[in-house]
């Protein structure tokens, strides 16, 4: 679906036959709805590929386009137009959902730029990352300690025992890893700025850094979730 087009291919409008570029939901000439365009999610909103985007402006554009393209506007139209409206609106919604979320957007743009992302953020990694080779080096010791504590906590729970000290330790660890998560988010933000403003070489470096930061973030958020689940159980 992400067949990124270097140059827009001219296409004739099905209704008025006037040519237009393959990145528009509507014919610029006769305003009729067009089959789903082949461009990327940024093109749907007429945006440049950037990590930092003007969210309120994008929301406004999302609403404007939704009013025009939504299947509710085509309930009594012909079969083709109804199908295109459905496909176009799905594309619009997919694009908006992906771009409005900072992490989804980061992963999406990195992939568009050809970066290899480990596991996607999008919920496919619900099982905790237990692969020890993926533990960030600087966290090895703490993660080892934390896993021991988690195991103890689960055992204590099973036996119906309450260990206030252990609980306090875990809560402290939770706070610590949460603050590390915050730090990763800050770092990501910095890399966004560098990439958005930078030349090709800067972008290459920023891209690599972001891929690593996303890995670290995924690892940390799994840890925080594990702790929260164990404490909340």
């Amino acid at each position, binding site marked *: 679906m992400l067949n990124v087009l270097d140059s827009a291919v001219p296409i004739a409008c099905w209704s008025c036959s006037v040519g237009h570029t393959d990145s528009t939901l509507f014919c610029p000439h006769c305003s009729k709805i067009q089959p789903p365009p082949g461009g990327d999610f940024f093109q749907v909103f007429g945006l440049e590929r950037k990590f930092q985007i003007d969210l309120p402006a994008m929301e406004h554009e999302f609403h404007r386009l*939704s*009013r025009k393209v939504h299947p509710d506007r085509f309930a*009594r139209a012909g079969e083709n137009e109804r199908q295109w409206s*459905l496909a176009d609106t799905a594309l619009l919604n*997919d694009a908006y959902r992906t771009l409005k979320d900072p992490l989804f957007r980061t992963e999406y743009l990195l992939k568009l730029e050809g970066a290899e992302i480990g596991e996607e953020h999008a919920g496919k990694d619900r099982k905790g990352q237990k692969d020890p080779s993926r533990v960030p080096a600087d966290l090895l010791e703490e993660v080892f300690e934390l896993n021991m504590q988690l195991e103890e906590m689960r055992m204590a729970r099973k036996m119906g025992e309450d260990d206030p000290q252990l609980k306090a330790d875990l809560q402290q660890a939770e706070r610590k890893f949460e603050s590390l998560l915050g730090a990763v988010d800050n770092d990501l933000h910095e890399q966004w700025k560098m990439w958005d403003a930078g030349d090709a070489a800067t972008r290459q470096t920023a891209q690599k850094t972001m891929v690593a930061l996303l890995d670290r973030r995924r690892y940390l958020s799994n840890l925080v979730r594990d702790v929260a689940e164990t404490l909340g159980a």
Partner: protein
Amino acid sequence: MAEGRVVGIDLGTTNSLVAYMQGDAPVVIPGVDGSNLVPSVVALDPVPPGGGRPTVTVGNTARKALIETPERVIYSVKRLMGRGLGEIQNELKMFPFRLADDAEAGEVPRIQLGELRFTPPEISAYILRQLKRNAERFFGAPVTQAVITVPAYFNDAQRQATKDAGRMAGLDVLRLVNEPTAAALAYGLDRAKEGTIAVYDLGGGTFDISILKLRDGIFEVQSTNGDTHLGGDDIDNLLLAIALDEIHAEHGVDLRSHPGAVQALRKAAIDAKISLSSESVARFDIELPNGDRYQREIPRDVFELLIEPVLNRTAGPCKQALADAGITAEQIDEVVLVGGSTRIPAVRELVDELFQLSPRGKRPHIELNPDEVVALGAAVQADILAGASKTTEEMLLLDVTPLSLGIEALGGTVARIIQRNSTIPASATEHFTTGVDGQTNVAIHVVQGERELAADCRSLARFDLRGIPPMSAGLPRIEVKFLIDADGILQVTAREQRSGQAANIEVKPTYGLTDEQVESMILDSFDNAEADFAKRLLIEARNEAETILSAVERAPQSPAWAALTGEEQAAIFAARDRLQSVKLGEDAKAIRDATLALDQATRRFAELMMEAAVSTAIRGKTMEAAGDDLGAAVTAPHPMAAAEFK
């Protein structure tokens, strides 16, 4: 308008309604008995003398048959929609329905009604057809397009089953709309609102919570959650179970083997529940078959303790919906209450607490009748789809899918491809390949739900990608596009990219009817293809007139007749004479008006008859005898008028 009207239908667990946009305001279309609510009850009349297929009745007339011939009546069928045989076993313990005895795993369950069997969509289709007829009678013109509401938390199969029912009833279902969203539309119409609202919808059988952002006429759902098996029915069943147990323990009478008596007791339980919304004590006082009386007071505080576990089950979904929308309770600007069960004071207290309303000086919105607000909203959406009105041209509803869509991966885990609360239509594209050289089929299992393992989610469909060109393992690249449409229903397309061949897909829904089955169940095609619409209206009007006239003819033989005043009796005779004089004319409307007038005149008589029937059934008379006693009331259109709040 060349294309005719689009009506909005609330197909409810307990009651169903049809509404339309009259100018710039939605209004409910009443039935022939003048009532806005059509009870979602379907009854099979006795086999006509000489054989043939018995007629099906819907609504108040059918509800009365619950006590008389419970084995020929079904209610709350919405709870069975889109569900498999295994899933409804628990449901059936609480309801007096019997499955067809030849039911097989994997097929849509069929309910035994008298000597016939019906799938849940067929039963719903009868209700829809009644609403369609009510609308056609009202407009004097055919109605073929509708918007139907469903609980927001309905899954794919439940939605598909609802659409199938519409098709069987001869309706082109332009859109399924989520009930809480419809309610928000009804509320949002008369005031240009901005802000975040929560819709708390506790109906007869389902609970939904939806959080919406309103801006510039766009109603954007942020999150939704709920429980498709939680509602007023559960409260009725609690009260009923207590009464049955106490009657058994204290009086040695097991009423469970008397379906008619159980239904009469259920009616008493519902009345008690309703009165407890305004009174501090409700009373059961029922004569038992052995002559004993079962007398019991239920103080409101005892009732509230009893139902607390049921109500508390709504708290979790509310909290999850807030979390998914990324907001706190304090950020909710308005709360809208929908569904009859939100009349219960304890429900209102819970909502107040969940959304921190009183501390912020706020109150929930209850201005619109909670029984009607969903139908009114459906009418607004119907108007939006018709696209012909200034009132709604700036309005747009952006709804979400309530459940995540996933594919079963290796090891039985779920790979999620569309997250819950994604705005619909939504799509996801996945690529599949083969694991063995020369493999030409790939099987895909699609599930819906939030659990980690496919076995814990709801199986939605199994797809077989067939006709893959034989290649080395891992070489084919099959692109499968999953698309959830604006009704919340999944569509799938696939193609093999290397060979450019479109792979054949054979969709085998885990639950549900095939297209062919739906076609074969379309209710009397006569209904759809009919040329002479006016003639049918006239025939129907005459039939209704005959029904009520023959009931009135027998009325003086009933003991209840003596309880009427001379004036009341005279009014009934006058209305009868009027109907008899217009009945043979060609004016369907005059006949209907006269029928309605006679119906009004006999209302009190019908209520007296019903009271007599309830106590007769509880005294344990045989059903046949009870039927004889019912006499005239059997055919009166409103023997058990909908309970209303003062």
